[in-house]
């Protein structure tokens, strides 16, 4: 009996000592992001996996994992494979985002994909700058996110959509006389409106009337629609969210006014509004980086793979942004000949130069994507048109 007790104590002590050794060993080799010797680069992802914004974070995590698996299945790039570690930041703009970031560093993150939401991203950009980690965010779209030189975006910066919309309308000769209805009390909407207006003037588009509304009066648009109608606008530009847009479409119809409609990614989602009469949206054009129903091969392949892997769920724009993000990282790693044993800082120095130096990327969310040194992406936006109750590429 006494002997058994002693044996047990001894073996327990041995287990404890052992686990301590392995634990210490693991963290000491990874915590400074100094690279691993097994030929794998660790990409750290951060986004909301729980809470109200969880659908965005989960989409990013799933799509990023899908991209990583695809790359590894093909043998990696230059023999280097990737590993994705993902932490939940709950879209919190404070401590939780920083904690998630620190956890990623502990897990040996060498490159960062994230964060998913703007608030969390602003909480960590100065940390990644300090630690000199290359950071590319799939979907944080505010201008401030990319103020440091090591941070880049896959998605459009908000106001850029206005410029891109004006360019698209002018270059494809869609309309000359344009009316705008925008939300004067919303930064997204008025940001797009301002850049649209400036670019439209440059491109010779004629803005016949500018109408606005505020968050307190966003159900009655009859005055705005009458103004657009009597100014004989051929196209109604709607840099707003889909709820108000669905009302404008209905009210235009009952006023017997049928201009062309053009919107930005805020309109994405209009077809999934409860009880929405889809025929109202027929012919609406919108500038969105990604439509799951688009017919091009790359999109089809991605949607199919995503659905197979994740319970037949249709990927959204966030998933596509994340998928592109991983592929962008892989392509940069290939181009610069990054090795898995390089430190995060070394990788960052090389990648941040490389991405704005003649690098071009064709992805799900845009063709011929290039980056300026300030971190904003320049890509030809994809315009989609709503046809037979579905999004289809223009």
């Amino acid at each position, binding site marked *: 009996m006494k002997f058994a007790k002693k044996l047990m104590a001894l073996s327990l002590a041995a287990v404890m000592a052992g686990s301590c050794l392995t634990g210490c060993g693991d963290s000491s080799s990874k915590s400074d992001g100094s690279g691993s010797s097994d030929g794998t680069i660790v990409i750290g992802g951060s986004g909301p996996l729980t809470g109200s914004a969880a659908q965005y974070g989960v989409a990013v995590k799933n799509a990023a994992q899908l991209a990583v698996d695809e790359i590894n299945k093909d043998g990696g790039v230059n023999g280097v494979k990737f590993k994705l570690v993902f932490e939940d930041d709950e879209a919190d703009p404070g401590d939780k985002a920083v904690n998630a970031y620190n956890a990623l560093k502990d897990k040996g993150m060498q490159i960062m994909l994230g964060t998913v939401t703007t608030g969390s991203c602003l909480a960590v950009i100065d940390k990644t700058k300090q630690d000199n980690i290359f950071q590319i965010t799939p979907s944080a779209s505010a201008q401030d996110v990319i103020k440091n030189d090591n941070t880049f975006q896959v998605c459009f910066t908000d106001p850029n959509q206005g410029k891109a919309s004006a360019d698209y309308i002018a270059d494809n000769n869609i309309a000359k006389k344009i009316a705008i209805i925008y939300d*004067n009390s919303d930064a997204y909407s008025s940001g797009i409106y301002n850049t649209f207006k400036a670019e439209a003037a440059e491109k010779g588009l004629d803005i016949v009337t500018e109408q606005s509304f505020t968050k307190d009066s966003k*159900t*009655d648009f*009859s005055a705005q629609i*009458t*103004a657009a109608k009597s100014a004989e606008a051929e196209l109604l530009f709607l840099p707003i969210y889909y709820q108000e847009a669905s*009302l404008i479409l209905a*009210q235009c119809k009952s006023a017997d006014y049928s201009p062309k409609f053009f919107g930005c990614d805020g309109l994405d989602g209009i077809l999934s509004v409860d009880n929405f009469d889809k025929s109202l949206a027929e012919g609406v054009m919108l500038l969105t980086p990604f439509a799951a129903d688009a017919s091009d091969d790359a999109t089809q392949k991605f949607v199919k793979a995503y659905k197979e892997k994740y319970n037949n769920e249709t990927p959204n724009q966030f998933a596509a942004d994340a998928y592109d993000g991983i592929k962008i990282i892989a392509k940069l790693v290939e181009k610069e000949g990054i090795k898995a044993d390089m430190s995060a800082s070394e990788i960052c120095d090389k990648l941040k130069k490389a991405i704005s130096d003649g690098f071009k990327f064709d992805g799900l969310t845009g063709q011929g994507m290039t980056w300026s040194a300030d971190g904003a992406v320049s890509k030809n936006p994809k315009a989609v048109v709503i046809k037979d109750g579905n999004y289809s590429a223009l």
Partner: protein
Amino acid sequence: MAFLDYLINGISLGSIYAVIALGYTLVYGIAKMLNFAHGDIIMVGGYAVFTAMVTWGWSTWVAMLFAVVVCTLLGITIEKVAYKPLRKASSLSVLITAIGVSYFLQNLALLIFDEKPKVFTSVVNIPKINLFDGKVVIKGETTAAILVSVVIVVGLSLFINHTQKGRAMLAVSEDKDAAQLMGINVNSTISLTFAIGSGLAAVAGMLLCSSYPTLTNTTGAMPGIKAFVAAVFGGIGSIPGAMIGGILIGVIEILGRAYISPQLADAMVFAVLILVLMIKPTGILGKKINEKV
């Protein structure tokens, strides 16, 4: 042409305000309390029609009847549970309770129907009228709103002045205690008032959601407040006053949005409230009642 269009839209919006304002005015005139939950009963009416028509697939008329019944019962329940125990309390307590009921209804709707907006299917089936080669269009909803509000005003006036229940309401509005001494059941009269007011709210909800087909838990909040302004403008307590006030407020709002600034349109509506209170506190058709000392 554009002016005529704005005017018609204004009258259309104003008729809806008028129907809502009638509910405010009726309850204030008789129970002497401001039922700030009135706007949210409108929202409940909207959701009732939506659920009956879209979720359960009922026909339009049955769905409309269902909504009126739901709102009427809700109105009576609210009165019994929240207002009746406070009959003798100060008007401030009742007002605060009404605001509480308003928030309760809004959050209950959020819990049941979640935050995603619903698109409302119009219950109006009247063809639109084209004037001047299609330059001016009168929507079916506009015609319906104007007709319904006129019918309600005439009907209510007849009811109040020419039926026994109606005269009982008038008596309660003038002097509760004296009415009771004359053998009028004050409690049931007030319940009836709430029932009619809430039934009107259901009608207003249908008109509102048919014209502006979106439904969220705050759908009734802003129209409710503007209709309150309309009721004060027309003279609170006065039925034709609510109609006139409603239409004027709607026209002011739309013309302001068109010719002055969309940002200032709401501010102008409330500026009207302040002006009315300063210049003629009893409103356009309000009666001046001399307080007995």
